[in-house]
Every structure is written in structure tokens, then in C-alpha cells.
């Protein structure tokens, strides 16, 4: 186990090094920070002075080493826009994003497993066909469109009366396609303070309502993917000899489905899932923008608009770190579930 963790730590450092080089290298091409910092009225001489002061004229390697040395101490410099350490800015925005990702992950896990298993057990049921068709639509529709549709339906509301309201069935159909709206779809509302920079939406019912629409639209890409993945794996596992043998032993179908088959189904799903959680963090850029959710994604987009280079670089580094951490955790969990993987280094 220790050997495994040390090995993974080494891998992680290597990955972080590569990310840092890339993040650092692109910053020269993201516009002139001095321009952003001082505006139009400052004369060129003062700008040159400022450039010198910020170290923007040093050779690439010197700048990188200075950057890497500071980064190792978790110091990524000051955000030009906020005029605060970038780590503080990130720390302020990180909880919102993590909560959004957690809520979306919860939706994905809570829905994809039962739906995936059901549609594998009953491949011909009409409900399965419905799930499969809806999931294709879900995969193909981009997040921002899903988000806008959700906002229209549940936040703004739809009052559309294409059917003659005078007749009974017309009024009924009109009612059916009319939605009330009223769900919050802008920002986080008034989250509860936990500690430090962490405010949570999970503490109150009102906070949770703010999470609903953003979480659904963030989950909308991954959920169908996971349903299809679980269904495909489960269908394959159900064909296996060990499932047939379990039936021949007289084991109940419930135990076969939810122990024998599901445990084997989840092995590849865990591997894919781990990578996807990292991807979810990246997808939050779209969701947070549409819902003005004050997380890292929205912050990142604003940072790009304002050429806030230190903040952009810090964001890239932090997201890289999140990827590395989740992948390591997933490998650990995989080792716990799959007996053929031994993390302990104990000979089998």
C-alpha cells in the first residue's frame, strides 16, 4: 500500500510538472497583463517600468523557475483583477464548484445504477426503450442548451395554450404543457457559512433548491453515458458462465443481479467514473456560466476575459491537481473492490 502511494505520488508530481510547464508557457499568449492592469491613460514609459517590476521581461526559464519555486510553496502570485493572492480567490470559489460537482455526481450515481441495471435485466421492457432513447438525446444535447431549457421550464415557466381552452381536453392538455416556474436559477442564493471560505448549499432546504437546476444540467451529459455503460457491462456479465452457474446453484435472482453481476459490472464503471468526475469539474465552466453559479468555472471564464493570467494559471494547476487526486482515489477503491488487484504488494 505504501509502495503504491509513493509510486502514485511520483506519478502525480510528474503530471503536475507537465501541467505547470503548459500552463506557464501559454500565459505569454493570453494578452498583455499590463494593459489590463493600468488601462489606457498610463504612458508607455510607466508601462515598461511596471513590466520590469513584474518580471515580465526576464527570460522564459528564469520566469518559469521563479513560478515553479513559488508554486511549490502554493504561492501562485496575485490576481490582477482581485488584487489578492490567487489561491485565496480560488479558495473562495472552490467550494461552490465542489458542491455542484458533488450534487451532480450524487444524481449520476443514484440514477445510473438502478436505471442501468433495470434496463439490462429487462432489455425489452418499454421503460428500457424509453430510458435508452432519452439517454441518446441526453448525450447529444449540449449542456448549455439543456440548462437554458431547464431555466425556461422550471425557473421562468411556460404558459402556452395552443389547444382550445374551452373544451375539457384542451384545458387539460394546456395545463399539461404549462409549467409554473419559480425554481431559482441564478447564483447560489444565501448559502450557510461552515468555516473559512466554505459556504454550503447543503445545509438548508432553500440552499438545496438553488442546486437543483445546475446539478441536473451538469449531470445531463454524464448520466446517459453511465446508464449506457452500466447497461452494456451488465448485459455482458449476465451472459457469463458464473452467472449461469449461480443460477444452477439455486441462488435467488435478486442476489445474482445485485451481488454476483453488479459487483463485476462496477469494476470498469469505477475506472471510467473516476476520470469522468475530473471531467465534470471542467464541465462546470458551461453550467456555472449559464446559471451564474459563483464557482471556479465562472471565475475562470471571467479571468480569461480580463487576461488575469495568474488566476488562469492557478486554475489550470488546481484542476490538474483535482484530476490527479481523484484518479489516485479511484485506483485505491478499484483495488478494494477487485480482488485480483493487490495494492498491498503482498504476493498473491
Amino acid at each position: 500500500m505504501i509502495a503504491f502511494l509513493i509510486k502514485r505520488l511520483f506519478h502525480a508530481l510528474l503530471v503536475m510538472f507537465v501541467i505547470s510547464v503548459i500552463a506557464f508557457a501559454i500565459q505569454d499568449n493570453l494578452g498583455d497583463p499590463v494593459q489590463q492592469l493600468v488601462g489606457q491613460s498610463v504612458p508607455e514609459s510607466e508601462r515598461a517600468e511596471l513590466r520590469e517590476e513584474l518580471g515580465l521581461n526576464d527570460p522564459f526559464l528564469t520566469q518559469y523557475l521563479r513560478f515553479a519555486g513559488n508554486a511549490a510553496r502554493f504561492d501562485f502570485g496575485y490576481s490582477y483583477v482581485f488584487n489578492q493572492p490567487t489561491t485565496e480567490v480560488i479558495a473562495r470559489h472552490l467550494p461552490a464548484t465542489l458542491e455542484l460537482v458533488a450534487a451532480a455526481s450524487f444524481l449520476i450515481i443514484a440514477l445510473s445504477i438502478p436505471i442501468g441495471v433495470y434496463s439490462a435485466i429487462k432489455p425489452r421492457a418499454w421503460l428500457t426503450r424509453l430510458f435508452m432513447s432519452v439517454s441518446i438525446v441526453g448525450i447529444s444535447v449540449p449542456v448549455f442548451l439543456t440548462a437554458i431549457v431547464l431555466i425556461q421550464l422550471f425557473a421562468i415557466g411556460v404558459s402556452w395554450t395552443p389547444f382550445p381552452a374551452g373544451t375539457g381536453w384542451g384545458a387539460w392538455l394546456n395545463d399539461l404543457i404549462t409549467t409554473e416556474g419559480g425554481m431559482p436559477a441564478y447564483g447560489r442564493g444565501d448559502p450557510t457559512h461552515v468555516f473559512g471560505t466554505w459556504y454550503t448549499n447543503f445545509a438548508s432546504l432553500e440552499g438545496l433548491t438553488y442546486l437543483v437546476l445546475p446539478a441536473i444540467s451538469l449531470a445531463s451529459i454524464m448520466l446517459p453515458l453511465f446508464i449506457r455503460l452500466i447497461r452494456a457491462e451488465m448485459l455482458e456479465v449476465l451472459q457469463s458462465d458464473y452467472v449461469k452457474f449461480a443460477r444452477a446453484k439455486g441462488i435467488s435472482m435478486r442476489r445474482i443481479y445485485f451481488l454476483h453481476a453488479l459487483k463485476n459490472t462496477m469494476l470498469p464503471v469505477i475506472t471510467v467514473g473516476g476520470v469522468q468526475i475530473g471531467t465534470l469539474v471542467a464541465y462546470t465552466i458551461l453550467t456555472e456560466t449559464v446559471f451564474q453559479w459563483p464557482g471556479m468555472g465562472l471565475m475562470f471564464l471571467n479571468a480569461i476575459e480580463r487576461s488575469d493570467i495568474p488566476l488562469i494559471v492557478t486554475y489550470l494547476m488546481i484542476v490538474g491537481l483535482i484530476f490527479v487526486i481523484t484518479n489516485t482515489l479511484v485506483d485505491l477503491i478499484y483495488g478494494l473492490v477487485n480482488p485480483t488487484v493487490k495494492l498491498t504488494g503482498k504476493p498473491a
Partner: protein
Amino acid sequence: MALLEVNHLDVHFALRKGDVHALRDINFTLERGERLGIVGESGAGKSVAAFSLLNLIAKPGFIAGGEVNFEGKTLNTMSERRLRKVRGNRISMIFQDPMMTLNPVLSIGEQMIECLKAHRRITTKAARAIALDKLQQVQLPSPDTRLAQYPHELSGGMRQRVIIAIALLLDPDIIIADEPTTALDVTIQAEIMALLLNLCEQHNVGLILITHDLGVVSQVTQRMLVMYAGRVIEQGPTREIINDPQHPYTQGLINALPQMATPGEPLNQIRGSMPSLSNLPSGCAFHPRCNFIRRADGQTRPACVEQVPGFVTSGNCQVACHMVAELLEDRRLQEESL
């Protein structure tokens, strides 16, 4: 009444282009403690027959007719719930490939204990004791450490021993073994077969042995069925069939054994291959491959192409062949004229 009676069993596979008849009109019985062999080429329907006994055929297969009677109860019309009480308890199965049969993510102990718990009200401790006892009976070395191990930690031969132990867990009346040694090393094959035979004799367990190994069938079983294209074409006492096969197909199978070939000559074989079940030849399904389709006068026997042969009795055996029927008829006429 026999322990197990199979009457007119028909199994169909519902495919898009129509039903394919995988088994047609299978009839046999098994007495308590009796060992029966089912032989035939790949695709003859041996495994389908084995799985259909416990109604375990995978979709789109289904039992279209006939019945499987076990202790007077009809298994194929029984509810899934009641049938589950028979599976693994009164009738258990051994599969072909021990590498695929055990669940890779559950320990040997879990897979044994769950089987006991499915059929008996029993504590985990008592179930463990039974599991240990059975692992000892199949001569698995250091059985108590095996219970905590996972299938990948065991070799193929050891896994098949575990599977035999699972099959014996509830002291069943019948074990259905579907090619239990095919996937194993030749040296291990004999060991496992001897073990299985030994345990069946010891506990008076009936055995239905599905195999294409005529050597094993002749050593282990008392009676045998020969299957071809979903039908039984010859059945009777094993010794009689092996020593004096009547059906041209059975003769071909026995002739094809390596020990029947002349040294230095190529091995004997039955020409052609098993027809597809969805496109069976007319009449006797074997007629395109049969060497005896022509009579002594050189004319093709029309019945072979036109009519599915019924069973005729020759000695203690039942044979479905027009040629044999004709020979028997000729002999009877000769005897009458004498």
C-alpha cells in the same frame, strides 16, 4: 418410477427468421445412482439438453414441449421459485470451463456458503464446516485457507475441484456434468474424472455426463445416448453401444478414435460436418454424411432422404436408422422362412 424421466422433450430457439429446433423428442430415464453419458459432436444439442433439464436454457431458447419429471414432479412447468429449490440442491451442475464458472470477485467461501444458505436454514459457521468437509472430499490441499481465497488464486484443476465440491454441497441426487474435463490439462483430466466417479459411487449420486470423449463415457457410464443434430439417434447400455455400435454415425465416431486407426495411416473421420440446425437435411439428418445410404444393389435407399427414422430395437439398444431397420427386418424374414 425412475428418479428422472425425460419425455418427448422439445427445445426451440426463437430467432428472427423463425424457431430453430435445438432438441427434438428426447426421451430417457435415470435411476437413482445411475450414470448416463450423452455424446455427440459440437452442435448436437448435448449442452442444451443438459441445461434444459433444470430449465436453465438462455433466451431465446425455451422448452416447447415434453416434460422433465424428477421424483414425479414436472420440473419444466414448475414455478421459478420452486424450481430454485431443486437447482443446486437435488440436482446440481458442473460446467465446462472452471476458469469461467466461479465468480472472480467473490471468495471461494462466499460462493460455497451462499449455496448452502440458499437451500437450508443454517448458520454461517455450520455452513463453513460443511464447505470445509466437501473441500476435503475433493482432495483440495489446505482447504481452510482456500475458503478465504479468490478464484484467480487457484489453478484450473483446483477450481474444478472447488466446483465439484459446490455440486456436492447439499448431497444432491443427480449431478449434471457438462464436459467437466474438456478445458483441463490431459493429466488433470483423468484425475478429475476419477474423483467425480469415485464421489458419485460413494454417495450414490446419479450422474449425467455430457462429453465428446467416448473413452470417458465407456469407463464411467452404464448407459449412453448418442445425439446428432438435436435428436437422439442411438441409446442403450454403454458397453453394448461401444462394442457393437449400430447407427452409422456411432460407428463413425468410434472409428474416428485415434486407437482405431492403422499406424502410419491418416486417422479415420466422418466426412462432412454437422448440419446447421436451421437448415437440416430432409429425412434422416445424417444421410448426406452416411456411408450406408446405398443398398447392396447400389440404389439410394429412398427412406433415408424422405423420412425421419423412428427407433427400432436391436439387442438392448434403440437405434434410429433406416438401414438398421431394414437389416433387422431382413433378418426377421429369414428367421421366419427357416
